[in-house]
């Protein structure tokens, strides 16, 4: 594992910018958010394809829809709760219902804007965005996957919501082609499967190592597409390990865990532990301490997994 950490926003911005060099349909929209989303260089180099609107997320989503009707591929990135909750109806109607080819990216998602408090946290974005028919929801897990997810997102025809974090993250594996709707087994195991998405996958892998020392063999699945979720892989994991635990920097209910449970209760019922943040306005503080507080660090995930499987011994 290469532990050199990279800023997810810069990775995202540079990945979009590189592809925009080759595809003039790609335009960048900003709600006073472009520079912080990694588009400073692009805005200088391509002022004709960089549109600043000031702090008006609702307006920008509607404008993006209108631009997409003429064949553009608008990309709009800003702080996650403001491009999901605040402008939800614009996404639902102007992008979803109108089926427009717009890419909305929520950065500083989850609790990564830890010290700024609950107004700036995004803990329900999976839950609400997945309910918009035809919308793809992505949560890439490392810098390389952000780059490949950006490519897949831009090649996909239709509305996409992608969330990225804020704190620098390490490269977990070699960059691979990103296939929307597919998860991947990152670690084999037989006692339990941990299914993680986005920023928590690093901790999930570390937790699996800790569990190993407790003689618990944990499979780890990385699930960078939250919607449509990889049903086949979930069923396979349920069949192999008989117990699933979902891990996400999101409310514990409504997100990936709920989607996994929907699949299992229909296709292959097994016990599921949904691990995330309880439905509350999360407290604030340093990111690492917040993860520890909500048991989303490696120790917390491993302990939660042990408590879960003990119920079945």
């Amino acid at each position, binding site marked *: 594992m290469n532990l050199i950490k990279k800023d997810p926003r810069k990775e995202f911005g540079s990945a979009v910018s590189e592809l925009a060099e080759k595809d003039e349909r790609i335009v960048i929209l900003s709600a006073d958010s472009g520079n912080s989303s990694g588009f400073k260089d692009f805005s200088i180099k391509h002022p004709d394809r960089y549109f600043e609107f000031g702090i008006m997320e609702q307006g920008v989503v509607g*404008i993006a829809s*209108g631009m997409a009707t003429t064949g553009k591929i608008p990309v709009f990135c800003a702080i996650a709760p403001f491009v999901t909750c605040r402008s939800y109806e614009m996404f639902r109607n102007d992008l979803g219902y*109108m089926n427009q080819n717009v890419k909305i990216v929520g950065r500083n998602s989850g609790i990564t804007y830890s010290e700024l408090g609950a107004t700036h946290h995004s803990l329900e974005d999976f839950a609400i965005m997945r309910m918009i028919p035809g919308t793809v929801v992505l949560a890439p897990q490392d810098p390389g996957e952000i780059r490949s997810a950006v490519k897949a997102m831009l090649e996909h025809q239709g509305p996409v919501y992608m969330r990225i974090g804020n704190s620098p993250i390490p490269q977990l594996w070699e960059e691979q082609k990103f296939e929307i709707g597919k998860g991947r087994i990152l670690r084999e195991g037989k006692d339990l499967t941990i299914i993680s998405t986005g920023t928590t996958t690093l901790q999930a892998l570390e937790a699996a190592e800790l569990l190993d020392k407790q003689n618990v063999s944990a499979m780890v699945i990385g699930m960078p597409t939250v919607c449509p979720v990889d049903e086949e892989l979930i069923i396979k994991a349920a069949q192999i390990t008989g117990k699933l635990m979902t891990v996400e920097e999101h409310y514990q209910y409504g997100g990936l865990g709920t989607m996994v449970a929907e699949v299992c209760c229909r296709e292959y019922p097994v016990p599921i532990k949904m691990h995330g943040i309880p439905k509350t306005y999360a407290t604030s503080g340093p990111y690492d301490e917040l993860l520890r507080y909500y048991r989303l660090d490696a120790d917390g995930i491993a302990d939660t997994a042990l408590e879960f499987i003990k119920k079945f011994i």
Partner: protein
Amino acid sequence: MTEINRLNLTAAKCRRNVLRMLEASGHGHMGGALSCIDIVTALYFYAMNICPEDPKKEDRDRFLLSAGHKCLAQYAVLAERGFFDKSILDTFGGLHTKIPGHPDMHKLPGVEANTGALGHGLAIACGMALSLRSDGKPSKVYVIMGDGELAEGSNWEAAAAAAHYGLDNLVVFVDFNGLQISGKVTEIMNYTPIADHFKAFGWATRDIDGNNMQEIVDTLDSLPLEKGKPNLIVAHTVKGKGISFEENKVSSHYWSPGEEELQRAIQEVEESIRQLEKICGEETI
């Protein structure tokens, strides 16, 4: 006057189309549809570069009905202009209809956006106008907004953006019939003088009689009102215009007429068609 009378005749026929849809469903947002239908008629039969046989033509002008509940006007005019067969008008209110209670671009040719939730159309139109202009296209984007709709804050985000980018290819009519579902617009949330609000945002504005075809056409002929500024036309209209006993009444907003009322309305509109046909016929001679 020939052109104006001909447009008035078309608008009267479109009013009859509205009533045809109400015959099918028994109810609908009639009042606002009939207040703006003269403008919609002028757009589709006088101003806009559109092609019913090729509704997605690249260099077409766009029309967005931001106040999507007035869709009876849009359907009536699209049908009259030949975008779809008039028999579809008889399906209004029915299961799987192509003309639902708010327009759906995926169901009906000629519809550019899925409006209905108020406060969306202006931003979408702004994006269209910005994109078309940056591509060097001559197309204009026309929007009809409701007066009650102005209370949606999202409009003002788009209003600022349109002025900031100097979108003089964006043409917005506010259908100022003065009434919304709960009463007078000025009593519910007062945005008058409407033109002054937009002017303060950097728009070029004009007040007109929105049921006077000559004034509508004159305004369309004088676009852009000011180079480099988006256009805002406050169209002073009459809710339920053309059905005398429902004009200027809140009850016309969502009208559920009895059979007798509906027949009376049809008779009035058909009489106006006969009179206009006579005028137009005499002019032809």
